[in-house]
């Protein structure tokens, strides 16, 4: 007779929380903040002023706890993506989810904390069936959790004291694979949320700082990289456990009364500093920016016919400093669609706050103060605030990063005008990554994401010098492209033939952007199957931001090349394999590399299956320039030629009006007199080849009146003109009659 094991750990019935409910706590927080204009009604920083040393000691212990969580937990158990890259982050919040302190990492993940907690409050999680200290919650849903995309996974653990929720410890990382129909961690071809992979509204998965046993099965059965994901799950929870323990120590040392007051003062203090910083750095006024991102689904979504169309996403925003901080208004941006690029307000916040935290919280505590100072308007029905509850958010990052760039560039324009030129540089968010799944010859299945060109990109030009390569990641202080060997270990058949800066690949100007990156991945013995897709920020069919800075060109977008059916074994014998996109195309042009199926992708590519000696080449991470290219110091052009940064003499000669001669050793020397003459000729050509704006306007207006645009542009205007603000701007600019519209006739 079988013996039924007795339960070793009997979970007691849930105690009723004795303090205020979460709903009451959120309501009180909002009431006090709205009525007074101060966070939680804190008009005086009484604890700080009475004993600043004690106050700072309190905060430093809190901050140390989250810093220690990151620096320990990712060495307890973590995927290479979490351990190597700069994204994973831990934080601690108030009961309502307002951030108190964060570790290093992707700071704006803090934007989602209040969204998830408020959802739990609104749905009485603490009433039925209660929230206890050490309860563990999983969150990866955009609508209820505010997450930027389901590839980002959050662990929340409750910090309770004497029957009351006092806060939350939160850990987050980007998964190596999240189980969507499109393998990887940005399900690029999702049509709605049901194709986004493992999407978890806030849900309890563990108690007493331990996950329950069933939770492991979710990772094993619903994702393709369960080993990696379970490691990361342990990592997030280990960090949260450290924060939970440290917070209880803090409560014991300082007392609950002090704790409850101090956490409010910390946020109010930083809010004031941020508002003060905005006033110190900005020029009041209105700053406008735009960007475009193509969704190329036409012909690729035959199963889901309602999604089988292309969409040109319009990203539009204005920034206007005000008494409370500043307002970022996205009205005029596209409507939501049946594609993977929709945001939610929480996800959009996670993008917008990138630049705002970096610009204005540099000398204060990084808290929810930023959320109070940056007011946002996401029009209902837009791509940032869909009025359909099941939109896909799988790849919203591919367009919301442009929203961040618009806001961040507004700050750059302001600091430039204000004279703080050392802060002014061109913001780009042109990232790339690839993802997929495979099965080895022995039947082992795996899913993967390679984050390399997301982790470190070229920084845009400063207003006083060139941008640097690789150092920039708008989303983290820790720009890193990760170790090639780690990524190779995660994707068994793919090996790096090259991984380097791509010459010439940047926005040109008086100062050039930092060059982007390119890698050549070589497929070797893929076993039964390997295939990949690429999510990408700014695709090269559109630039990742629409406006150059001060006469420079915006950085080019990312692209990729698939070269399938190659003679690579012959090239390996000769030791002449390509190392980047430019070299590969040159070898194809010269006939050295033969390719049966060569495809250059400036748009989203469908899943690409690779076989032995196929090559996958990508390029991303370029950034924009600053200033008129004809004002570039000619010696800098010569240096770029000699260093190989800009390899095409004819191109840069015409771009910068520089004439040079090359000696037998290949070194370039400036011809100053010819350069002066060429620059004069190019300036004359500018005037000869251009029209007065009034004449250009008349010509363009006729095209607008005739609606003489490709379907994607036509629909883009149809969507954006459905919002009053952009409709008004469009009509005023083109002076079109009242009956003019872009509706389908």
């Amino acid at each position, binding site marked *: 007779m079988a013996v039924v094991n007795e339960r070793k750990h009997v979970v007691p019935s849930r105690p009723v929380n004795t303090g205020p409910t979460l709903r009451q706590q959120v309501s009180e927080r909002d009431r006090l903040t709205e009525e007074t204009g101060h966070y939680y009604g804190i008009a005086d920083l009484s604890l700080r002023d009475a004993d600043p040393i004690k106050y700072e000691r309190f905060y430093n212990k809190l901050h140390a706890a989250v810093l220690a969580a990151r620096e320990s937990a990712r060495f307890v158990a973590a995927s290479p993506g979490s351990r190597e890259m700069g994204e994973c982050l831990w934080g601690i919040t108030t009961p309502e989810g307002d951030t108190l302190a964060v570790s290093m990492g992707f700071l704006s993940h803090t934007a989602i904390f209040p969204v998830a907690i408020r959802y739990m409050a609104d749905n009485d999680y603490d009433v039925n069936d209660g929230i206890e200290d050490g309860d563990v919650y999983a969150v990866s849903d955009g609508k209820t959790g505010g997450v930027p995309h389901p590839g980002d996974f959050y662990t929340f653990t409750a910090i309770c004291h004497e029957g009351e929720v006092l806060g939350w410890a939160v850990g987050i990382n980007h998964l190596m694979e999240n189980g969507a129909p499109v393998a990887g961690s940005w399900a690029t071809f999702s049509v709605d949320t049901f194709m986004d992979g493992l999407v978890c509204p806030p849900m309890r998965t563990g108690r007493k700082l331990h996950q329950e046993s069933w939770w492991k099965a979710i990772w094993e059965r619903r994702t393709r990289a369960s080993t990696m994901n379970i490691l990361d799950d342990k990592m997030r929870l280990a960090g949260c456990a450290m924060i939970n323990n440290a917070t209880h120590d803090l409560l014991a040392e300082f007392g609950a009364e002090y704790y409850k007051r101090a956490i409010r003062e910390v946020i109010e203090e930083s809010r004031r500093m941020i508002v003060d910083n905005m*006033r*110190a750095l900005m*020029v*009041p*006024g*209105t*700053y*406008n920016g*735009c960007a*475009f991102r*193509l969704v190329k689904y036409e012909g690729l979504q035959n199963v889901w016919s309602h999604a089988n169309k292309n969409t040109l996403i319009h990203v539009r925003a204005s920034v206007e400093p005000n008494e409370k901080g500043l307002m970022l208004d996205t009205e005029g941006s596209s409507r939501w669609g049946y594609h993977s690029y929709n945001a939610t307000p929480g996800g959009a916040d996670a993008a917008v706050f990138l630049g705002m935290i970096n610009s204005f919280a540099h*000398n204060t505590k990084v808290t929810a103060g930023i959320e109070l100072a940056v007011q946002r308007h996401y029009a209902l029905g837009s791509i940032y605030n869909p009025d359909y509850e099941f939109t896909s958010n799988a790849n919203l990052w591919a367009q919301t990063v442009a929203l961040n760039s618009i806001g961040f560039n507004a700050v750059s324009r302001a600091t430039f*005008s204000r*004279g703080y*030129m*050392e802060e002014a540089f061109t913001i780009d968010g042109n990232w790339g990554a690839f993802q997929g799944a495979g099965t080895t010859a022995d039947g082992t299945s795996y899913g993967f994401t390679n984050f390399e060109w997301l982790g470190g990109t070229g920084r845009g030009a400063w*207003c*006083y*010098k060139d941008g640097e390569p690789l150092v920039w990641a708008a989303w983290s202080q820790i720009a890193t492209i990760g170790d090639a060997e780690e990524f190779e270990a995660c994707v068994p058949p793919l090996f790096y033939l090259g991984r380097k800066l*791509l010459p010439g*690949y940047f926005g*040109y100007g008086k100062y050039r952007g930092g060059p982007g990156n390119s890698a050549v991945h070589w497929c070797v013995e893929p076993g039964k199957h390997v295939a990949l897709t690429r999510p990408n920020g700014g695709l*090269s*069919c*559109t630039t990742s931001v*629409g*406006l*150059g800075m*001060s*006469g*420079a*060109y*915006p950085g*080019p*977008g990312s692209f990729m*090349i698939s070269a399938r059916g190659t003679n690579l074994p012959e090239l390996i014998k000769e030791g002449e394999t390509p190392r980047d996109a430019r070299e590969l*195309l040159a070898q194809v042009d010269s006939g050295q590399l033969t390719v049966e199926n060569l495809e*250059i992708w*400036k*748009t989203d590519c469908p899943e690409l299956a690779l076989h032995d000696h196929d090559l996958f080449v990508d390029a991303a991470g370029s950034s924009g320039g600053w*200033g*008129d290219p004809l004002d570039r110091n000619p010696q800098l052009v010569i240096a770029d030629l000699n260093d190989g940064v800009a390899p095409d003499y004819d191109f840069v000669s015409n771009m910068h009006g520089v004439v040079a001669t090359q000696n037998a050793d290949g070194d370039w020397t400036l011809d100053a007199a010819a350069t002066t003459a060429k620059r004069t000729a190019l*300036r004359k050509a*500018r*005037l000869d*080849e*251009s*029209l*007065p*704006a*009034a004449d*250009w306007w*008349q010509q*363009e207006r006729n095209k607008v009146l005739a609606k003489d*645009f490709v379907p*994607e542009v036509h629909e883009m205007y149809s969507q954006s003109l459905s919002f009053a603000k952009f409709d008004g*701007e469009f009509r*005023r*600019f083109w*002076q079109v009659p009242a009956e003019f519209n872009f509706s389908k006739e």
Partner: protein
Amino acid sequence: MASEASISKELISQLVEGTIDDDNATRLQRLPRKDQDRFMNYCAVLQARVSWQDQILLRLGDKLYVVRNAANQRVVKCDCGHEFGDYRQNWKLGCKVRVRRTLAEMREVYDPAPACPEPGWQEVREFFCPDCAAQHSVEVVAPGYPVVFEMLPDLDKFYRDYLGQPLPDEAGDWYADRTADLTQRWAASAAG
């Protein structure tokens, strides 16, 4: 460095000229609080570099300023002296415009070839000073896109509330987008 630090005009000049060394640039970036007199010193440095006398009220771009001209108007002005008109109208509409629409045209400004924006979905607009041909701005936008008014400053508020030095010609209507006045005139002119 003390929070009340004042940065020398020499260092500001080096920023403007692009000759500042990395150590000094980093030192400025690491100021916990910026020097409050920077703006006035910056304007003084800029004023000394231009060949005209109009007072610089704000720098908009490398070679572009809002100035108060001899007629006591606030206008946008180029380094070369060209005036673009009332700063409340988008100065780009006083430029000459060159548009790159084809792949071959865009290939002249984007490298390597796959990095080119795609014609039809995008066009590259270059805005030049009609006198000196300085390239003041570039837009890569969809065809038919309204020219973007990159920055309309609220100068009165800036000088009064942010700098504590109100402008003598403060008025209630200085912070208003007047671009449509221009396009209205153009439309009327087209109508005949």
